[in-house]
């Protein structure tokens, strides 16, 4: 049957890995923020900003890797903004996040339009080419699927064990985990809670921005309005689905990417019967289902959403 055929094609698996990349960046980024006790609803806007900044950098003549750094920097900046409001001022993390998302997205669109006022088709740039890893890319199946991908994909895959190690095996990671459970414990050790949370949010936001940048400088080679298309929100659902663990986040991202890749191909195969819009709905429906499945027993970091006020005992 046609469905099985899809699973055999290399194209499907290659696309899966590619589509998982922004989800991996975004989910890891959000995971770090939430572990530290901060819900970062700015992710959708930050990913948009990362996408725009990276594309703009390359379009203005910069090189690709610097574009990644610049995007990360932009993300960190918005993370700092979020942290000032939610951590230092202790304001509602929900509203701050929504504000940051709206601001980052609208700023991206404004700057884009300002630099390219009369454009109907977004100009293209020269994106990351898939980089075949020597020798490994010769392998029969995995070679093309896993080892002939964009360098940013390799980065995403590497980031998973790095973040896991960082969280679970370093003193800093322990402090981050603790600050999301009981910030008072961290303060009693003389570690500045606000600074720690801010650092976590900035780092997480940098990851998110790189996830957005991947879409412009590695996949679509152009920036257009609305290109993030809800991936940020899906990442938030994925963090819950992953129980705030990097390894599970990785698997979750792959699972979702599988559905997305599948959806495109099934759509092509049976567009006559089921309208394509229903296929496009699938990632969102699945995200809701994922949350339903996992929320019941979810062990939220205890201090998530709780602002820490110094000297309040």
């Amino acid at each position, binding site marked *: 049957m046609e469905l099985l055929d899809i699973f055999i094609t290399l194209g499907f698996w290659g696309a899966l890995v590619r589509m998982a990349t922004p989800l991996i960046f975004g989910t890891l980024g959000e995971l770090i923020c939430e572990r530290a006790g901060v819900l970062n609803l700015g992710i959708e806007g930050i990913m948009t900003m990362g996408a725009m900044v990276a594309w703009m950098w390359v379009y203005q003549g910069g090189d690709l890797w610097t574009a990644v750094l610049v995007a990360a920097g932009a993300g960190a900046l918005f993370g700092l903004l979020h942290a000032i409001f939610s951590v230092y001022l202790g304001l509602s993390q929900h509203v701050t996040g929504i504000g940051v998302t709206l601001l980052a997205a609208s700023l991206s669109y404004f700057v884009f339009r300002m630099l390219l006022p009369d454009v109907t088709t977004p100009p293209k740039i020269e994106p990351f080419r898939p980089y075949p890893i020597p020798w490994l890319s010769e392998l029969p199946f995995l070679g093309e699927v896993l080892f002939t991908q964009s360098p940013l994909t390799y980065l995403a895959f590497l980031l998973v064990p790095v973040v896991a190690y960082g969280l679970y095996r*370093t*003193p*800093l990671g322990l402090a981050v985990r*603790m600050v999301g*459970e*009981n910030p*008072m414990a961290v303060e*009693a*050790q003389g570690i500045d809670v606000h600074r720690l949370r801010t650092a976590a949010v900035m780092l997480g936001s940098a990851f998110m921005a790189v996830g957005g940048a991947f879409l412009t400088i590695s996949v679509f080679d152009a920036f257009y309005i609305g290109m993030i298309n809800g991936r940020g929100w899906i990442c938030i659902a994925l963090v819950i689905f992953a129980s705030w663990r990097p390894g599970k986040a990785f698997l979750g991202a792959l699972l979702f990417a599988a559905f997305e890749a599948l959806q495109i191909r099934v759509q092509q195969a049976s567009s006559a019967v089921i309208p394509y819009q229903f296929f496009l709905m699938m990632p969102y429906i699945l995200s809701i289902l994922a949350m339903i499945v996992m929320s019941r027993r979810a062990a939220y970091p205890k201090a998530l959403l709780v602002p820490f006020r110094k000297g309040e*005992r």
Partner: protein
Amino acid sequence: MTTVDKGGAPPCNRLSSLRYDPADATCGETMSISEVDEAASGSAGAQPVLRLQDITKRFGALTANDAISLELKSGEILALLGENGAGKTTLMSILFGHYVADEGHIEAFGQRLPAGSPRAAIAAGIGMVHQHFTLGENLTVLDNIVLGTEPLLAPRQNTTKARKRIAELAEHFGLVVDPKKLVRDLSVGERQRVEILKALYRGARVLILDEPTAVLAPQEVETLFATLKTMVAEGLSIIFISHKLNEVMAVADRVAVLRLGRLVAEFPIAGASKEKLAEAMVGRAVEMPEREPQPLGPVVLQMAGVTVTGDHGKPLLDELHLLLCGREILGIAGVSGNGQGALAALLSGLRLPDSGAFELLGETVKRTSPVEMQGRGVGRIPEDRHATGVVGDLTVEENLILEACGSPRFCSLGLLRGGVIRRNAREMIERFDIRGADPTTTTRALSGGNMQKVILARVLSEKPKVILANQPTRGLDVGAAAKVQELLFEARAQGAGIILISEDLEELLQVSDRIAVLYQGRLSTPVAVEEADMQTLGLLMSGHGEFQRQKGARGHAA
């Protein structure tokens, strides 16, 4: 051979060598215990290990600490005594660096202590066991102890070394605990051990304990005291915050008494008496309301064989038997966690028993909800006034009608009757002496005692027949506590039966007509307060004694 640094640096002792910091600059070499004794006896009494000088701290208009000067000598246990609100925790928080004093300074081991930095305090050898534990529940014991002891940017944690040191410390001081366990799976006593280990792990030479016995049974308290004496023998000095006179008498060498932010007395325990302490602590004569015996009314509440199961199938209440009559106060003693929560939940309308008979005023309770309980005449004073008692952001008049917002008196055709609500508030404020408030004051701005009065006003104005008073005076100063007790006596005189759950045995003995102990979900046979004594109660609280099993036992004096 031995390198005891002179000129101000603290003497190196065995505890420092156990400190997890190989780059410890103050420690030349490790010393044996006899060397420690020698060094300690040489410097004992010569120089206090801690000196607080003229510490003053203000919060707005409130002066929490007023020019307090205090010394801690090496190897002594100093008790810091005072009632709630006297400024004890504030003072210790300044010492540990959570707050910065407005005036004054602190010297630790002869050196000026930088203010406002827990890190500096830890480095100077000061450790603190907070009243509310600073533990991350979803993390392991090891994680909790090790947090912050390694440089933040170090690439790896050294878990093997840490585990070894913890095992050494644990064995040495008898504080056994499994490093791999998650904190949320530990008992309260075990959690406290982890807190103490945290301080010892960092090489604390001065240990501050803030109300450490609040959550312990009498036997656990004795174990704690034994541990403290061991620590002192090892060269530690201890400050112990408490408002419980018995404990202070039992374990302290010296006592410093704070009252309303000032140091009012300081003397050695030898030769002191409880009365002297109480007098120093309270100062002006506070009229504690007297309990007058009342003739018993009819039975208002009866529970027979009531079982309530918690998560994981553990029984929170285990075939509980309870009988309450009108015009009496039944005091429920017990270490928290033995079923008080479930008992309160039953009476609050938050759950039904899983089995057994539950009768209010003669009628079986079949369905339950807070509204149902209110309708049956149960008044409920919750344990935590901030979390479940009042809605801080609403005004006083709104909180006063929080329970009755749907009653025809305050609401007609779905609309609130503003005039009636305002008048009601004015009346309540006057009748219950709620200070610092008018009807439109935001409730969050009231003091703890006045907030409690709002809750009592709301509850008592409905003239309930059964009252659940759950820790009603916790965190209140003596004046406010007296007022609360007075109001309870008033309600009792008007016919109400009151279940008083309290951690404070002294209060229970003062206020109750009968006392029973809740242990692992079972209630002991209530005894008349005249026949009760601390020792038996203490034994019951740790499970030694008779707990009712048979049905219908009454326990009233004939």
